[in-house]
């Protein structure tokens, strides 16, 4: 604090003195700065500088802080500025301080850093930009300060010009919300460095957004930070420009657009990105609001078509966009049928959902059973034993298919694949794979089944044997036994536990069959190949038309088969069987050692691939193939141990067709002694190769062959079990009589033994067990569903969460049950909904009277219209062949004709056609809660829910409401419905048509409320207007049952034409009937189905809705029915009679 040695600078001294009266830091900093600056600045400048500082300090009470900052910053700033500019800088600060010392503080504080990036001539501008944010409030000053402070950071990436724009933007936004502006500032600092080059563009966009819909800015910055950053600079700019353009034309969701756009651009291949943005631009040029939809849907579209094809789709869309924005939007949302069709015709892939109905009907035609067709995934999700999500399969009642086929380049071929797999799968059903009966004799073989011992029989015998011998030795892992079943009583008793009575033990004949084998996996594989070959044989014979594609698919399947030489011996032979079954002729490679076995197997396949073979033949063939294969050790073989098998023709036909490929007696011997060489075996070669050897060392574990893709998964045991239930229902299994309910234990037993389950069980013991028990649980459920006792129809996989449960029974009076249509399962849920019919309570007759009085003009008009109808009823009908009297004109004509010698017209009569008008009509009013909505939002005063917050005001408001007698000051939809009905009823009475008025609402399927306002056969009395008065909004909209009930009522009335007039305010919805997603469609489909039923019953349905969004679902719901969407609800009273007249005459 030494005083200066240059007293000729009075200002410095003065300043020093003056500054002493301020808090100490001011002077301290002054001294420090002075010391450094004095040498660098000219005296004059220095003095001006000091004076400036003093001025700042003096300006207001708090401005000393600014002064302190000023001194602090001066040193650094001075280094970067020439003295003229330096003073200017100081002056700017001073003027800022006049506005607010805090601004000045911020200014000075950030100056040293800012000056590094700011040209001196911009200092003023800079200060002004920041100062513009300041509006005298604390918040604005904070914002302004933040901008000052942020300047150095911002300027690192922004040019000064950009900075100014940003400031401008902040200013605009801050007019709306300082918080948003503050957030935007923060976000900007983060964002800008990442999108250098496009900052200005982005700021420009942000600015427009801030002007148009400032609330969106935060989201805009967020989504820009999240998505824009990932884009390359090439695509960022066009995207931002696009967004900007859209925002200008009124699309508010720029943020969403950026996000979706960035997302999409990132997902398409790099070389198509420019093109994509061009496309979007093209759309935006025609219809701005459609462009974001396009960007959003692109990934989905590209899943189905190539980029080039999408181009065509987009072009088509642009054509459509010229019509209207709405159609453009629905096109690019993939909602419009035209869009779907276009895409469909472009893409070669086929989705199951689009051909499902065709395939389903195809299956129905081929099998004569209502086969359901589902995506394979659905079966896997059921978790009842099928695991593959993409292989075709069946469980006997439903066939499961991959959800999309895109294997070939044309649609026809892809559809052809669908056809091939469905033909094969239903082949199992049509040609009776699951109708296997253990006791039915085969046609082509000597039956071995009855002569072979079952495994459990063997086990039982063994247990008996052990019991008899009173052995206490623990059971060995592998059942080793060779004895005949025991005969003596004691043993039999001892075996009671193990050997249960034969028949009930097996849930299915399939299970009983597989029980014959020790190596069930092998047996299943062999059976699968043979049975599939048999089915293919049938298909070839009966459906030669499908064979062209079938052969293509087969050769593809052959190509994807594994190399035989890689497989161990037994597997190689199974693979050989598959190849034979797939018609491979040449280049058949088999283990050299087992050529003979291969020949036998080939002969078996040939034999089974004939139109004469039945499933029992496949079973017999399996026994033979198994007996051949079980003798073959599954040894790993070298390549040179394989040899080519001669083609079939060259095979020496030592065994003619009539001869069995294996000696049945040997097979029996082999099976009897299956596991063990222990006893009786006479050293026979077959006997020597038993289980023990099979388990022996050096041998590979046998594993199942790779599935043949078009044949898919084949699970005969489970399928038979599941389809048995189905068949019982349709009475096809009656000879089996009553079937005992299946217990969980039985199922577990079956699952344990079923070879088709094995592969999952072996995957980790713990998890496997749990999985199995879950599966059993699911299977039980599935079986219960199919139990005819529970249900007449097999329900589809239900996705209703709270709509579970079975059919309902109408026990109370005036309740009725109706089925509901499940469009996913394509069938009815029987007795699914309960309709409670009630008579509407009666209210005051005033409404009726008042409405008529208020609408006198309209009443008269309607009357006139209807009066025109009446003469039509009695019009003379001329030129009839038969009638009341001769029509004089016609008779004269005829006489003349006769005289002339021309044959006369025979229609000489006329008749007064009294029956011309025989009309019954039921009006069905939607009384759902949504009808409580005001018909015009704008007219709705802040009534019910707009109650004032202030207690005093509230009381006033409440009183005024009460004084109005709680009358609404606005009209609700339901009020308009009431009006319309009132006017119509009034005129209908003059017309003499039978008519009924009903209302419906309800909650859940058990409570469909159905209100009678006037029954069809009821006379119009005073009570009807009183009931009309009570029409009021209630609950939900479950249309289906109400329509069905009304149709049932109409059907009882004798009339030549019957009409059902549905007046609704919107889409059907109810608990479990209409939630988003599938259920929304469910309701629409059910309603549609109920309308179809009505039409089938000779009723003409007509739907009048006031839902402005009605067109979208009405198209589906009312396809080829008549409907009308009223643009303005208030037209209803006028329109209703008109429609009525047009419709019924």
């Amino acid at each position, binding site marked *: 604090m030494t005083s200066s040695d240059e007293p000729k600078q009075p200002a410095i001294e003065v300043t020093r003195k003056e500054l002493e009266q301020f808090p100490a830091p001011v002077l301290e900093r002054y001294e420090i700065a002075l010391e450094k600056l004095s040498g660098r600045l000219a005296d004059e400048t220095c003095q001006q500088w000091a004076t400036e500082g003093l001025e700042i300090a003096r300006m207001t009470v708090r401005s000393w802080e600014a002064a302190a900052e000023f001194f602090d910053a001066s040193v650094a700033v001075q280094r970067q500025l020439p003295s003229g500019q330096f003073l200017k800088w100081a002056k700017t600060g001073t003027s800022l301080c006049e506005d607010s010392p805090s601004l000045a503080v911020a200014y000075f504080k950030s100056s040293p850093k800012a000056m590094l990036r700011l040209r001196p001539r911009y200092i003023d501008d800079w200060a002004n930009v920041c100062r513009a944010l300041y509006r005298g409030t604390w918040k604005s000053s904070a914002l302004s300060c933040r901008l000052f402070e942020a300047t150095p950071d911002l300027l690192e990436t922004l040019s000064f010009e950009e900075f100014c724009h940003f400031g401008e933007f902040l200013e605009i936004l801050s007019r709306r919300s300082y918080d948003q502006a503050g957030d935007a500032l923060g976000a900007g600092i983060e964002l800008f460095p990442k999108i250098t080059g496009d900052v200005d563009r982005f700021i420009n966009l942000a600015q427009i957004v801030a002007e148009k819909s400032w609330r969106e800015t935060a989201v805009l910055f967020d989504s820009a930070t999240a998505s824009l950053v990932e884009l390359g600079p090439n695509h960022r700019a066009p995207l931002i420009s696009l967004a900007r353009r859209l925002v200008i034309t009124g699309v508010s969701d720029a943020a969403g657009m950026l996000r979706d756009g960035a997302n999409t651009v990132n997902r398409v291949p790099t070389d198509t990105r420019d093109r994509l943005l061009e496309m979007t631009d093209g759309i935006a040029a025609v219809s701005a609001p459609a462009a974001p939809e396009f960007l959003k849907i692109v990934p989905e579209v590209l899943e189905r078509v190539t980029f080039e094809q999408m181009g065509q789709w987009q072009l088509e869309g642009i054509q459509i966009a010229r019509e209207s924005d709405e159609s453009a939007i629905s096109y690019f949302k993939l909602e419009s049928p035209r869009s779907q069709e276009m895409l469909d015709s472009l893409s070669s892939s086929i989705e199951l959902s689009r051909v499902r109905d065709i395939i389903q009907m195809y299956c*129905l035609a081929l099998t004569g059973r209502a086969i359901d067709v589902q995506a394979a995934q659905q079966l896997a999700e059921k978790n009842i034993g099928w695991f593959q999500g993409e292989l075709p399969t069946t469980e006997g009642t439903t066939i499961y298919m991959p959800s999309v086929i895109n294997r070939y380049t044309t649609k026809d071929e892809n559809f052809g694949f669908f056809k091939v797999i469905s033909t094969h799968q239903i082949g199992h059903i049509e040609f009776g794979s699951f109708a296997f009966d253990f006791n039915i004799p085969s046609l082509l073989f000597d039956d071995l089944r009855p002569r072979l011992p079952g495994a459990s029989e063997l086990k039982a015998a063994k247990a008996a044997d052990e019991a008899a011998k009173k052995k206490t030795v623990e059971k060995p892992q592998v059942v080793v036994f060779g004895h005949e079943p025991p005969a003596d009583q004691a043993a039999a008793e001892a075996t009671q536990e193990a050997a249960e009575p034969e028949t009930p033990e097996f849930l299915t004949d399939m299970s009983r069959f597989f029980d014959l084998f020790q190596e069930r996996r092998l047996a299943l594989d062999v059976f699968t190949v043979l049975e599939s070959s048999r089915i293919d044989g049938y298909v070839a014979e009966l459906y030669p038309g499908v064979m062209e594609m079938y052969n293509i698919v087969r050769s593809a399947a052959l190509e994807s088969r594994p190399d035989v030489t890689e497989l161990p011996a037994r597997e190689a032979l199974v693979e050989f069987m598959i190849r034979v079954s797939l018609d491979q002729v040449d280049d058949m490679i088999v283990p050299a050692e087992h050529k003979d076995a291969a020949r036998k197997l080939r002969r078996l396949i040939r034999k089974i691939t004939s139109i004469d073979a039945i499933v029992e033949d496949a079973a017999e063939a399996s026994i033979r193939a198994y007996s051949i294969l079980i003798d073959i050790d599954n040894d790993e073989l070298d390549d040179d141990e394989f040899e080519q098998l001669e083609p079939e023709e060259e095979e020496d036909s030592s065994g003619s067709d009539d001869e069995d490929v294996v000696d049945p007696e040997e097979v029996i011997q082999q099976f009897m002694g299956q596991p063990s060489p222990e006893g009786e075996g006479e050293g026979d070669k077959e006997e020597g190769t038993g289980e023990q050897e099979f388990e022996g060392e050096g041998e590979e574990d046998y594993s199942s062959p790779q599935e043949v893709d078009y044949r898919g998964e084949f699970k005969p045991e489970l399928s038979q079990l599941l389809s048995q239930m189905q068949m019982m229902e349709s009475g096809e299994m009656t000879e089996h009589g009553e079937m005992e309910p299946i217990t969980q234990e039985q199922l577990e037993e079956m699952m344990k033994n079923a070879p088709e389950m094995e592969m999952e069980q072996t995957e980790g013991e713990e998890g496997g067990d749990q999985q199995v028990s879950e599966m059993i649980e699911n299977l039980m459920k599935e079986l219960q569903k199919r139990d005819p006792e529970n249900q007449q129809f097999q329900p589809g996989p239900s996705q209703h969460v709270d709509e579970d449960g079975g059919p309902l029974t109408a026990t109370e009076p005036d309740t009725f049950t109706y089925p509901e249509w499940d469009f996913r399962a394509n069938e009815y849920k029987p007795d699914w909904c309960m309709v409670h019919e009630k008579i509407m309570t009666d209210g005051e007759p005033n409404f009726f009277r008042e409405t008529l009085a208020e609408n006198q003009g309209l009443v008269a008009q309607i009357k006139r219209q209807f009066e025109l109808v009446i003469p039509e009823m009695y019009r003379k009908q001329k030129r009839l062949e038969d009638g009341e009297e001769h029509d004089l004109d016609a008779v004269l004509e005829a006489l003349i004709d006769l005289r002339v010698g021309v044959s006369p017209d025979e229609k000489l009569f006329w008749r007064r056609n009294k029956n011309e008008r025989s009309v019954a009509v039921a009006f069905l009013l939607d009384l759902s809660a949504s009808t409580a909505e005001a018909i015009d939002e704008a007219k709705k005063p802040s009534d019910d829910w707009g109650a004032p917050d202030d207690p005093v005001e509230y009381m006033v408001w409440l009183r005024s409401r009460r004084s109005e007698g709680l009358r609404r000051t606005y009209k609700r939809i339901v009020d308009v419905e009431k009006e319309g009905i009132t006017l119509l009823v009034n005129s209908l009475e003059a017309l003499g048509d039978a008519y009924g008025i009903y209302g419906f609402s309800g909650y859940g399927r058990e409570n469909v409320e159905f209100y009678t306002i006037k029954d069809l056969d009821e006379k119009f009395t005073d009570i009807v207007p009183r009931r009309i008065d009570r029409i009021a909004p209630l609950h939900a909209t479950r249309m289906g049952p109400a329509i069905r009930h009304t149709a049932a009522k109409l059907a009882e009335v004798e009339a030549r034409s019957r009409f059902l007039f549905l007046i609704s305010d919107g889409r059907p919805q109810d608990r479990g009937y209409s939630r988003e997603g599938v259920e929304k469609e469910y309701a629409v489909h059910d309603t549609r189905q109920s309308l179809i039923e009505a039409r089938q019953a000779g009723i003409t349905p007509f739907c009048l809705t006031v839902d402005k969004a009605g067109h979208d679902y009405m198209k589906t719901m009312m396809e080829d029915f008549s409907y009308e969407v009223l643009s303005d609800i208030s037209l209803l009273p006028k329109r209703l009679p008109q429609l009525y007249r047009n419709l019924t005459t």
Partner: protein
Amino acid sequence: MATQQKYNERNIEEYYVADEPFYVSTSDEIEIFESAYRQRVPILLKGPTGTGKTRFVEHMAWRLSEGIAKRNPNGASPSKTDEKLPLITVACHEDLTASDLVGRYLLDADGTRWIDGPLTRAVKYGGICYLDEIVEARKDTTVIIHPLTDHRRSLTIDKLGTTIDAADGFLLVVSYNPGYQNALKDLKHSTRQRFVALEFDFPDEEREAQIIAYESGCELETAERLARLGVKIRNLREHGLEEGASTRMLIYAGRLIKEGVSNRRACQVSVTWGITDDPQIQRSIDEVVTSIFA
């Protein structure tokens, strides 16, 4: 009965079945018909369209004529038409009135002249009157047939004020198709209980193949495939199709095939497109066709 001489003139509706109509029996319907005819019990033929109801009646008219001829002790020549059994077929439609069946006055140069309707003629001649699709006719027509179907065997002609007793050979045969199940178009019980009913359905696959082969002259293998197609399409009944493919349809397909039209195309034009207008069902049927026919 005495009227027979007076009304000797021939009319075009009268139809003597000269050659044996091809008919493959599926059950005992021929025997039943013969017995019923001997007892003069009216017969109701039920069954979907194209199951051979009309052909059956023709066949029976021929067969019974043959029987009459054989029984004729004099061995008179069969060309003596009096001894044959005429068959008068009326296809009923919704505008068919009682006077269409009974007869009406026509204007003549000199005034009016009475013309017998087909039913009256059958009654007078003692032939089989076959009312095809009886439910289609107006309700008043069913009433006039009532007296003809019980012990009275008489026809009242209002306009003439006369009642005619049916000639001995007269028998009423009606048919209807319960397939269009419709409460409005069902036979009244008072009517239906006057008949013995024979149910007709499509013949089994093998027999149908024979019929198709015979009628169309196509190869047996083609006929077999056509018969299979018929069976498959009939599976769609009640699932979108109101009626299954008739044998007639399949025969037409067979004929086209014989003419050299390709299998698939022949089926498409004579079966698929004929049976339904629903594009989706058409597509499904087409798929069945292309599976069965290469």
